[in-house]
């Protein structure tokens, strides 16, 4: 049976928990306590279900081979057996015991993850899901950014977990970084929260996991886990006011006199829209369009001219600018460091 293949893959992924050998979003390569707790539980559940599978599969296979009608059959009906209470009792009690074991193991992990206490050094983040991008606000640190979440690495001896409050500005979304934690939905009018304490620096990927509209597929998640120094430096940069200098460049004038400002904020200018990502420090980000494209001058230009070329169905309208205007606007955006 080909179905056995699936079990091998589950087992193969499970052998290398520290390295995301098969995929950067492998749930069997946890790097944060909630994901590790789930991983431990999942190995137990897989072991139990795999054992049941082997036993029952063997019984059915044996039965089918052993009791097939033979070529030399005498044509008489086999003995009729109507049931047996002892046998029924046995295969009721054994599953009950298995279920109780699975239930107890599960309840432990639910409590570990959902009832974790919040240490003093915890970082607070508010994540707000939008069609089709992520807004991140650090209320204590007075930082607002979009699509790329930065958190400090958490040393198990001095944990600095990040607690993320999950809100939605429009439809349902779901926050899922498989290597850091299970997913939790962002639902309007229904605040949720999760926590992560990544123990290795690096970039962790994920994406929206609750269907939220046309561009659900390109609502990608990027979490940058940084050393404490790098994180503090990043926070310091993000708290700086926006790019200063000659305020009246042509690009800035175009930005401030078109619909751009209805949706985007650039701190220190008249632009204070909230529907789209904050662009104050746009150039500090690696990607644009919620991770759908790299943040290069060429991609910025394509994005401004026709967002549908990168994300068809994106809510950002094409601004119908001419080439010179797009050049000026792109040049202005490239100053937002």
């Amino acid at each position: 049976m080909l179905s056995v293949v699936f079990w091998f893959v589950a087992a193969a992924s499970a052998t290398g928990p520290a390295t995301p050998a098969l995929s950067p979003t492998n749930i069997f390569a946890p790097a944060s306590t909630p994901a590790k707790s789930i991983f431990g539980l999942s190995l137990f559940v897989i072991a139990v279900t795999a054992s049941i599978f082997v036993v029952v599969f063997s019984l059915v296979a044996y039965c089918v081979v052993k009791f097939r009608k033979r070529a030399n059959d005498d044509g008489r009906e086999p003995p009729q057996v109507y049931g047996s209470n002892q046998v029924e009792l046995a295969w009721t009690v054994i599953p009950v015991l298995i279920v109780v074991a699975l239930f107890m193991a599960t309840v432990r992990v639910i409590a570990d993850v959902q009832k974790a206490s919040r240490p003093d050094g915890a970082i607070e983040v508010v994540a707000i899901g939008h069609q089709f991008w992520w807004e991140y606000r650090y209320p204590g640190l007075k930082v607002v950014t979009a699509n790329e979440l930065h958190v400090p690495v958490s040393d198990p001896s001095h944990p600095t977990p990040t607690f993320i409050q999950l809100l939605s500005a429009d439809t349902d979304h779901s926050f899922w970084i498989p290597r850091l934690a299970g997913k939790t939905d962002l639902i309007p009018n229904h605040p949720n929260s999760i926590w992560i304490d990544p123990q290795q620096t690096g970039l962790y990927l994920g994406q929206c996991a609750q269907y939220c509209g046309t561009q659900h597929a390109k609502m990608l998640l990027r979490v940058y886990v940084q050393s404490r120094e790098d994180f503090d430096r990043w926070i310091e940069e993000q708290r700086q006011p926006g790019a200063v200098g000659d305020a009246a460049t042509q690009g800035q004038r175009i930005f401030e006199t078109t619909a751009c400002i209805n949706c985007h904020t650039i701190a220190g200018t008249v632009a204070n829209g909230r529907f789209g990502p904050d662009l104050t420090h746009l150039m500090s980000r690696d990607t644009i369009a919620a991770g759908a494209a790299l943040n290069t001058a060429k991609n910025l230009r394509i994005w401004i001219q026709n967002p549908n070329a990168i994300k068809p169905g994106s809510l950002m309208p094409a601004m119908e600018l001419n080439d010179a205007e797009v050049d000026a606007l792109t040049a202005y955006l490239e100053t937002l460091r």
Partner: protein
Amino acid sequence: MATDSIAWPRSEGLSRPFVDQLHEWVTTVDHKRLGILYVVYALIFLVVGGIEATIIRIQLIRPHNDFVSPQVFNRMFTMHGTTMIFFVVMPLVFGFANYLVPLMIGARDMAFPRLNAFSFWLTAFGGLLLYFSLVGANGLYGAGNAPDVGWFAYAPLTSRTFSVGHSTDFWTLALLVSGFGSIGTAINIMTTILCMRCPGMSLGKMPLLAWLNLVMAGLVILAVSPLTAAQVMLVIDRYLGGHFFDTQAGGSAVIWMHFFWVFGHPEVYVLVIPAFAFISEIVPVFSRKAMFGYPIMVAATVAIGFVSMSVWAHHMFTVGMSANANTFFVFSTMAIAVPTGIKIFNWLATMWGGKILFKTPMLFAIAFLFQFLIAGLTGIMLGSAPFNWQLSNSYFVVAHFHYVIVGAILFAIFGAFYYWFPKVSGKMYSETLGRWHFWVFLIGFHLTFDFMHVPGLLGMPRRIYTYEPGRGWDTWNLIVTIGVFFQAAGVLVFVYNLLWSYFRGDAAGSDPWDAWTLEWSTSSPPPAYNFSTIPTVRSRRPLWDLKHPEDPDWKYE
């Protein structure tokens, strides 16, 4: 058999005007004809839903594919899910119940023949309404031309803010209309089973199929009603200024989820319990043994029916319920594994010590056992809430429920088609083609749905129209898509077999399987009145008693 004139148009001769025959089918209140109408209607939609699935899979064959636009992709998965659940599997289940229940309990028709016809036509027009959205949904907005909110249509995506035009209205009304049809049929099935059994057939002597359909009908009434209520609330929100699910005015998106899944989870059992029923008829006959542990099977089914009403929120482990609520739903979800396991063991014990005959229906039944086992075990993984936080809404879930709906339910239905085809048509199907259908479809099924688990474990969410390269998902998706073409080929063989056998097959006789339940005691196809004299039974296997007067069942039950 010349007197069996009304049940089947062929026996009346093909010379009668087509319009007359059509008129008879459209106005019929005969349970057998309505059963056939349900099934034919469902098969047409099976092909439509299959084409939608194929479009989905071609789009996902490689990363950044642009076979269809995101808008079209989103409509495809919405229509695929809605079609397959409401207009394929439910009509198939109702069709078989309609055809078989009166015959198996020795009745001449359903309790309410005209309600029966009314229910069928409601369901039929519900399906047409859904597909009429392709024409009518644009409204004055030039908006999308088919529903694109997903088959469980979470609020507030369905509000007029996020869903302009009429596509969501067509989805809502289609389910509302067909929902009334489902409730009508369920009332009919329950009444028939409770009131129309032949003399001697106490509840404890009914064939298991009747028992299981009784539980199914009860679940339909309990499950479809909240869905219907929710659809009415959604219409009120969209057109009468209601705020049930309008989160911007203080409404609750989570309430919709509860309404939907309090329908949605029992619905799974509405579909799978009739599949259990088919297996419980096929396995004994092809093992040549009585069903092992009949009273326990009945008890397990009733238990599943009750417990299935209290597990719905395991679809909602990721919406941020309290730890206590999560714990409760973990418990109820895992508890349902026990009666389900009992069923598998009883089928196994029925085969044990028998003389198993590998005809096509039995091949499908054996595949059902293996696949339902796997579906149940992945279900336990999903029932463990923390594991679910990783697996929910990933391709692992998609693979899991297709294992249930295709691997278990559809396989059982295919088995049922071959098992009862001789009874319904009077012709024997082609065993060779049946085996081809089985093996080709089996290979396709496993290529698609075994490998579909893997991208889910590797972090691939469902309902994405495309994905990034470098995530380790590419190869798995390629294999999954290849499997689809095997499945399509299998279904073509199946349809060809049905048509070929109907026109060219050998006469089947009234009892080709040497079976034991009452439908095999009348002619194939049965006359309009089913039985010239209403039978009297003394045991669960009345035909066994007739065939083995020296060793009848009623001595042991």
